């Protein structure tokens, strides 16, 4: 049977102004307006956020699992890319 619920959208919720928008799930909707309303009803009913993004799932470019090896594994043996070889001076608080 053909899916009649409309295209898929991905939902991002911002908890407070200034914080990043975090992906929280997806939904079906026929257009932008319905998508943002559905996102409000599905994902912010329990005061989870103060702002919303909805993005057509089709607009998202994703890396594929087959690429995982060439994309991510080369960084595993390059510990020198992590800033862990420095002595942190005493008195520096926020690092």
């Amino acid at each position, binding site marked *: 049977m053909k899916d009649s619920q409309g295209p898929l959208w991905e939902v991002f919720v911002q908890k407070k102004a200034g914080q990043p928008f975090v992906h929280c799930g997806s939904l079906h909707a026929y257009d932008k307006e319905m998508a943002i*309303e559905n996102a409000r009803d*599905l994902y912010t009913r329990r005061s989870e956020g103060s702002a919303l993004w909805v993005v057509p799932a089709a607009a998202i470019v994703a890396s594929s699992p087959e690429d995982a090896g060439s994309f991510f594994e080369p960084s595993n043996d390059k510990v020198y890319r992590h800033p862990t070889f420095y002595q942190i001076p005493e008195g520096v608080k926020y690092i």
Partner: protein
Amino acid sequence: MTKQEALFKYTLRLSDNSLILAQRLSEWTSKGPFLEEDLALTNIALDILGQANSLLEYAAKTEGKGRTSDELAFFRNEREFYNTLLVEQPNGDYAQTILRQCLIDNFDLLFYTELAKSKDETLAAIAAKSIKEITYHVRHTSSWVDRFGNGTEESHTRIQNALNELWRFTDELFEMNDVDALLLKENVAVDLAALKPIWKKQVEATLEKANLKLPETVFMQTGSRNAKHTEHLGYILAEMQYLPRMHPTAKW
């Protein structure tokens, strides 16, 4: 009729509108056209149930005879309910539910915006809280009226049929009686007659955008101000009141 009695009757009427409408909308829960819309309508029903709860508690307090809000909701009969006929009309198809809701949302937004200025502080506070909720309801249901009206031939036919069916219950929303008159003088009640032309203009704009036409000859129905209802209310109450009446001493 004292002012206190009028305030009780007035608050009870508002409670009943919300309570019966919430019960009607809840019938859709888990049966909505698709998951997202099912939740959206259930949210709306829950908002309205919350309004009913606040209003019923105030009604119980105003009556001052020791009846609780639950007793008012579950132990009154059909001829003691004062909700308008529109809210008790069957859900029909989704177009009919949406159209009924859109007509009521437009009314409620105007009504509660005015009630928020009431001299009665409790009613004003309940109204102020409700405005934000209803603002969203109007947005949601108006966009659905637009979608149905400008969608396919079938969706257009369905929402036009809904309008033809329900329009006859709209005059009653603005009916005023001695309760309104008494409380209007005290700056507690809302002047419904003054709301009517504004409501009509707004609703007509929404309907026109959705390419819908008002039915031409309509006999406007009336009765709820005297607790006279259509045949549907009895069935709603039967379902809503069954459990507490079977087990009156049951506790959550």
